[in-house]
């Protein structure tokens, strides 16, 4: 049971020629539950965007195992909350992978929508306009949509923001249920205690993987310290590549240095 779901090969992702994920190599096992941790600007969200394909790699590639469908819950949703839609309309978008643009929604689909809402504790919210939802309720609605997408690979970017403690518990339970169903899950989390308690594996990022593997090992104090120090070093100095492998990149970085001073880390 060591099939890979995702393979990163020399993956570099970024914005305006500034790398936010730098030459990442490695693989995500099928059915694994991985927490992605790191400071602001360490490339967590960027990695998610790269995996789901909304951000094209600057170099290298992400290889998905054939037939793997991804569901993605972004940190900053581009959701238009003033759009006249009800909760059921928003959640039903999750049927897209199954029904596509033209397929009719069946009674079974509608049942699935209410089941998904029930699962996130929003049973009976179908008819509510989305502009009347609280932040946490909206987040749970989006979870219901992910649930409905029935994906093999689930990417959640800081899903616990603005969510109360009880709901975090519910959502964690949901994630564990997915884990039990052999789905591959990656979650960006800031709360390290939460990671230690619930996630078997962790990827600690600071633009490059500082540590990656079993959570207890990865989150050792020395690794965390390294992650922090590495990050600070990056702000002061331009990034550097191995000369033999990525010779052409050096021009870029020399150039970037001038621009990047004082700009701070990019939102990731």
């Amino acid at each position, binding site marked *: 049971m060591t099939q890979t779901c995702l393979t990163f090969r020399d993956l570099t992702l970024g914005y305006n020629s500034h790398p936010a994920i730098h030459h990442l190599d490695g693989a995500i096992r099928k059915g694994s539950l991985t927490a992605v941790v790191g400071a602001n600007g360490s490339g967590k969200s960027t990695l998610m965007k790269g995996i*789901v*394909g*909304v951000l094209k790699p600057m170099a290298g590639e992400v290889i998905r195992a054939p037939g793997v469908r*991804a*569901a*993605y819950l*972004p940190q900053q*949703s*581009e*959701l*238009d909350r003033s*759009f*006249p*839609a*009800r909760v059921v*309309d*928003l959640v039903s*978008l999750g049927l*897209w*992978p199954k029904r*596509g*643009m*033209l397929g009719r929604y069946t009674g079974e689909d509608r049942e699935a929508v209410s089941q998904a809402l029930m699962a996130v504790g929003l049973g009976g919210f179908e008819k509510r*306009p989305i502009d009347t939802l609280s932040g946490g309720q909206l987040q749970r609605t989006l979870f219901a*949509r992910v649930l409905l*997408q029935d994906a093999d690979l689930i990417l959640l970017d800081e899903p616990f923001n603005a969510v109360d403690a009880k709901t975090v518990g519910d959502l964690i339970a949901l994630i564990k249920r997915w884990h039990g169903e052999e789905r591959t899950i990656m979650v960006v989390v800031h709360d390290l205690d939460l990671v230690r308690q619930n996630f078997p594996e962790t990827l600690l990022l600071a633009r490059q993987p500082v540590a990656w593997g079993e959570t207890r090992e990865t989150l050792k104090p020395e690794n965390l310290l390294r992650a922090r120090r590495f990050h600070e070093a990056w702000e002061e100095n331009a990034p550097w590549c191995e000369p033999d492998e990525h010779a052409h990149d050096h021009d870029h970085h020399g150039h970037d240095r001038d621009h990047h001073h004082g700009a701070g880390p990019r939102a990731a």
Partner: protein
Amino acid sequence: MDALYSLFIAPFADFGFMQRALFGSLMLSLGACPIGVFLMLRRMSLSGDAMAHAILPGAAAGFLFYGLEILPMTIGGLIAGIIVALGAGAVSRFTIQREDASMAAFYLISLAIGVLMVSIRGSSVDLMHVLFGTVLALNNEALTLIDGIVAVTLVSLAIFWRALVAECLDPLFLRSVSRMGSPVHFIFLGLVVLNLVGGFQALGTLLSVGLMMLPAAAARFWTTRVEPMCVLAVLIGFASCIAGLLLSYHASLPSGPAIILSAGVVYFASILFGTRGILRARIIHHRHRTA
């Protein structure tokens, strides 16, 4: 009874040009009003206005070479509209400039070229005709064209409905599950141009956007769902066309402005009395439920 008949029915029963005007404007509402709803929901209400100005040089070019003929003017308008839509879109995508600014630049240039072209050949009467249209002079050719545009619009909306709603509601989600995002945006812009071009013979380039936006803006005050909003916008469009034509007939007013002003009256009424309008919000504030 007779008075009612002569007020509401007789103008349409007795005059062929009124029947055509009614039929043409109702068809226009059927296509343009749902498009207006989506323009509004995408916060592109003023882009519609800009696009309406942008089709002028194309229409003028058709007019310049073929005279006051519907087909060349329509095709010209279509080409000009598409050039401006794509040009403004491309500038905003490949440069730092936002779409509102590039759209403004493109349509102003386009409008100036259009006015210039009309003035080279025609009299100011012709310019007035292109700018303000004449719904009372719709010929069979124009009606056929409008029918075709409405058919294309409704079929496209039916096919792309789900993608269009998804693109408005949550574009990032759509990008994560499908590649339809960009195509659907451009298809939608195409439909906008098409409906404006369809409307300019009847209402003129300046006012054709009115039949698109005003019913949509009014419908927003009555419902919280897209589907009923589109239906309601179409009904408001219908009512405005009928009221406008009657007003135009009885009071000898120009038909285009009369139709748009009728829609304007519905809009103001909706602001005040709509279920999401001002008065209702004030009254409801005094009462609330326990949970």
